[in-house]
């Protein structure tokens, strides 16, 4: 890419970037922003939507979030890097999380993590070459009563053994099934502002 191209891309990013949100989504976003005193408070929800759309948050995504929430892009970068659930690089379609915090650890969480590393052939916050899986050693997920646990995406699998965990991965490999989607709920209409 020559210099001019780069400059143009930059210009496009800053000034004429096509929004990634459909008109309906934009309307939803403006409703969402009204639920807060300042648009900046919608930053986390906006970033969530961007991550849901593309799996991670890239430079364009940050630029867009910055524009929507009226903050500098540097601020968005600071926020994205602060929270562990926002990804600054592409992750697998199925993000496997293994808890190794105390309640899980003393019931075999570390063994499960080792099994997952071996089974997927990747380490902490890495992605398989086919892009199907990524792995993360996570802190307590609030499922200690079901320890040891793993989560695939949003879905929790509790009281698992290392074999169970491997079976979950194998099932995804075989069937390609995304863990059953959970019904989404529309934001209630805002009435009180």
């Amino acid at each position, binding site marked *: 890419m020559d210099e001019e191209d780069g400059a143009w891309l930059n210009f496009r990013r800053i000034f004429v970037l096509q929004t990634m949100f459909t008109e309906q989504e934009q309307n939803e976003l403006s409703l969402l922003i009204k*639920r*807060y*005193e*300042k648009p*900046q*408070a*919608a*930053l*986390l*929800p906006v*970033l*969530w939507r961007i991550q849901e759309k593309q799996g991670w948050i890239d430079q364009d995504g940050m630029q867009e979030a910055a524009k929507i*929430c009226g*903050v500098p892009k540097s601020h968005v970068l*600071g*926020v994205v890097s*602060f*929270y*562990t*659930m*926002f990804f600054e690089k592409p992750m697998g379609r199925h993000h496997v999380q293994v808890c*190794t*915090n*105390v*309640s899980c*650890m*003393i*019931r075999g969480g570390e063994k499960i993590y080792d099994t997952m590393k071996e089974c997927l052939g990747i380490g902490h916050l890495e992605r398989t070459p086919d892009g199907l899986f990524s792995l993360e050693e*996570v*802190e*307590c*997920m*609030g*499922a*200690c*009563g*079901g*320890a040891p646990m793993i*989560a695939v995406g*949003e*879905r*929790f*699998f*509790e*009281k*698992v053994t290392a074999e*169970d965990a491997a*079976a979950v991965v194998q099932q995804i490999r075989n069937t390609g099934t995304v863990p059953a989607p*959970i*019904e*989404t*709920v*529309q*934001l*209630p*209409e*805002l*009435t*009180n*502002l």
Partner: protein
Amino acid sequence: MKIILPDIPNLRDIDVYVKNGGYGATLLKAFSMRPEAVTDEVKKSGLRGRGGAAFPTGLKWTFMPKGSDRKKFLLINGDESEPGSFKDRQIFEFNPHQMIEGILLASYAMQVSHAYVYIRGEYAHWIRMVEKALADAYSRGFVGDRMRETFKPAGEGVPYSVDITVHKGAGAYIVGEESALMNSLEGERGYPRIKPPFPANFGLWGYPTTINNVETIANIPPIMQMGAEAYAKIGEPKHPGTLLLGVSGHVNRPGVYEVPSGTLLTDMIYNYAQGVPGNKKIKLVIPGGSSMPPLRGDSLEGVKMDAESLKAVGSSIGTGGIMVMDEDTDIVKVLQRISKFYWHESCGQCTPCREGTGWLHKILKRINAGEGSKADVELLEDVAKNIEGRTICALGEAAAWPVKFTVQRFPEEFAQKVSNEPHDQVKLNKVHALRAGGLEPVEIHVPLVVRK
């Protein structure tokens, strides 16, 4: 006695909830009182916060400026990230409407205009459950502008309505700290703020704000329903009500159990959670989530689960997450894992916390690897002492306490790690039998996804 998670199937369903008296007489009764009278009732009930510090809830509410001329906010803390805690999740899953009703009551008492429920992002599934419950409550006119028609004030009540918004977190334990929670909601990094000013004066966007835990708020409807006096009689007088205690680790039936405060710790472990696998003895119990001082297995007799009783035995109720570790557990390794957590979660604003937590983890790692010395154990205590009380927020203490008290209470474990000489094992507790009759073990916690 179960007032937060009663055994009613499908209580999450708004129809079931309404059929069981939800969004009805209790709200009407409260909305016919002066707002301050509701606060007084909560004050009289003796309710103390369930988010960790056990601060009297009614008293906290009185810190808010009176009247409705200034915008005010209520922020519900559902960040629940303390290792060992998984109780608020049960409320989201099994009784979200009671939390919403609690928010309506609290909002009325303090005349707030908008309430936010901040839930950790890992609970995506449970967030949907709460959003569904909230959408249903909106559509029935129980929340939002239409409240004014649904609940016509009588007596001394004032017309009132409030909006509620669910806000999804994105993974950061420190955000559970109340001032960090506000920063996070405002779209900042989750850095704790220096206090004062306190939230009741300068909270969300600079407006007066009250922060309460999910379980705390879910206690408000029962208080208003049965009256403060009846509520104050439940459990221990100095910390009344029922507690949602999560039992995890080496027990046969881990789960969240709702029990009157003051229930014996041994009853939690042996009756509710059905004892330790293999009938092993217990080496260590953390009674309130991983940042609370651990108790030795041989000092569990007679310990009651409430703020004052636990304080008396040198620990704290915290979030009520009971972690049980059997006689074969490597305590130093557990402590290393705990230290790794606080090191990972330190936001890095204060030097003692940022550097100290790293040091604690590093030293413990060395000791665990068999490369430690006696001086290292002393160094641990020293570093912990230098974090405590020198930081912006209580994460400093949360990191220091487990280290300080584990070193103090399990010296033989450390001695063993740093020398080759044999040492006496920890004197262990006795194994309790399941107590006959009386206590009916009831498991509330139902794993969301059962394997295969």
